[in-house]
């Protein structure tokens, strides 16, 4: 763990602080202040991402530091989910934003790197970007699933969906992105490495994550709302598989493979 005494580091720490303050304000029901802080945090996160982009001169989605920087720009998803999909979790999103930026600020190496030949492909940005977006939806789904297991419900008058339905809706929103990420990656693999499926640990974990959500859909189709707890467990298992795909596969030596450069 190290503190980054750079402009980039400062921007990351400012975003974390704004998100945490926004979370505290939300906990104490200071809705307006929370919203302003959250929005400010997002603005700084965008600046941070833009600064990195300018600095490395390619879309900064190459390694875990850059990917987590991207994940920190969670605000538009929160807004979209609340306004359009009627899914809450406003406070949780602030916390998710701070949590994902924490390793970017203190753990991951921020040394700028030039793109290796394999990453110089138009698919690089859409493949990683759709995955990141889907991961945010799935993280929100997992949070709603935890709320369902904990017996928490939305407050009356908020016009939000109950947790079980909210979980379903989040997975509905995120699953096409997850599918697109998997297929774009496979198509890119064919162009770069000669095979659309290389049985690489990262590929297999992403397939496992995708399959868990496929399982969720099938189970929910079969049982509907009869076993909401099992539905929630599927969603949480899916998120666990995503965390392993994103972090463990890249950081652990157990899973060395074609995606090892993404650390």
């Amino acid at each position, binding site marked *: 763990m190290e503190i980054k005494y750079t402009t980039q580091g400062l921007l990351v720490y400012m975003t974390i602080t704004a998100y945490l303050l926004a979370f505290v304000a939300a906990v104490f029901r200071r809705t307006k202040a929370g919203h302003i802080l959250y929005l400010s945090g997002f603005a700084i996160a965008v600046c941070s991402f833009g600064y990195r982009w300018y600095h490395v001169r390619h879309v900064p989605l190459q390694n875990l530091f850059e990917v987590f920087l991207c994940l920190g720009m969670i605000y538009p998803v929160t807004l979209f989910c609340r306004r359009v999909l009627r899914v809450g979790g406003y406070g949780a999103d602030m916390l998710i934003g701070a949590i994902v930026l924490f390793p970017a600020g203190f753990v991951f190496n921020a040394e700028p790197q*030039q*793109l*290796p*030949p*394999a990453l*110089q*492909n138009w698919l690089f940005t859409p493949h990683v970007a759709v995955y990141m977006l889907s991961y945010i939806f799935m993280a929100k789904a997992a949070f709603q699933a935890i709320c369902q297991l904990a017996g928490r419900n939305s407050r009356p008058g908020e016009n939000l969906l109950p947790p079980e339905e909210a979980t379903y809706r989040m997975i*509905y*929103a995120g*699953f*096409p992105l997850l*599918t*697109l990420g998997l*297929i774009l990656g*496979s*198509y890119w693999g*064919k*162009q*770069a*490495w*000669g*095979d*659309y*499926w*290389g*049985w*690489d*640990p990262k590929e*297999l*974990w992403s*397939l*496992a994550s995708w*399959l*868990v959500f*496929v*399982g969720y859909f*099938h*189970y929910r*189709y*079969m049982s509907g709302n009869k076993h909401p707890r099992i539905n929630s467990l599927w969603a949480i298992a899916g998120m666990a598989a995503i965390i392993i795909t994103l972090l463990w*596969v890249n950081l652990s030596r*157990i*899973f*060395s*493979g*074609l995606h090892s450069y993404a650390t």
Partner: protein
Amino acid sequence: MQKYRRTIMWVGLVLIIILIVLSIYGAFIGAERAEQFFNHPPLVVYWTALVTLFIIGIAAFRRLVRVPGLLLIHAGCVLILAGGMWGSRVGHNLQKKLFGIDKIRSGRMAIYEGTSDNLVVLDGSREQKELPFSLKLKDFRIEYYKPAYLRIQIRQGGQWKIPVEAGKEFPLGDEAGTIKIVKAYENFKIGMEEGKSIPLDDPSPGSNPALEVQITEPGGQTSTQYVFELFPGHSHGQDKFLLSYRRVISDYISELQIIEDGKVVAEKNVEVNHPLRFGGYHFYQSSYDDKAFQYTVLQVVSDTGLYVVYAGYWMLCIGVIWHLWLRHIFTRIKSKST
């Protein structure tokens, strides 16, 4: 019928769970062993069962046929699996037995500059097979990001990263002095001239990238050091500076010609992400002669089943996006307009 459908759903769910478990297991054993594992006969049975269940499911559930998104998703999965199986090692063996199609599934070929070749060493064996056409390597080269950088560290602490620009002097502070890159060599060699050894850039095949660096101490004394890319961290105990020179590769390029019946029928530069497609095969930049850059190694992959898989990808993507997003968006727009 209801019970029958329920059974299909349960079997489907069990097969999904089995595949989750197998994928996780495969991730732990590494790509090479995982590929063998997923091609083992019991797994071939599993894949066949999965495809069969998809087809039974489409036949048994009217909803899967009536709802276009669901039909696309499930039929897309069938195509992906069928294409994958048809293009697999087992699939290639089957094609040879049933239809006499003897195609190379995957292998590698090394071609020297200025020569042509059609021999492919098959993956997983020492067996060689001939392609029905030849490939000629006109040139192989590596391109690097510019500028390259020289990293400087001093033992007392402090580090710099300076762009490699011959003739330019960089100040390193009052205590360290200045550093100047005198010359960049592609193939550094020591030659003799009038009985004295001198450094030279050898134009003959070979690669030994190096920098000639002149260090001026705060007192005014100058010394010359050579920094070699191939020997990072090379330094003497008394050296004040630790220097390292590393260029970052931006591309590997093989300029190729395809020769059929003695005529050049196609030309292409094969790069990473830009394979050559010809005669039912794809050729990829795989490796190269890292000593003298005299030959390239290409990966040869058969395209059997590939376009079936791609068709499945399209169907799956369109199906998922239609079923989970667009259908709802259109319904919402429709209900708002009425």
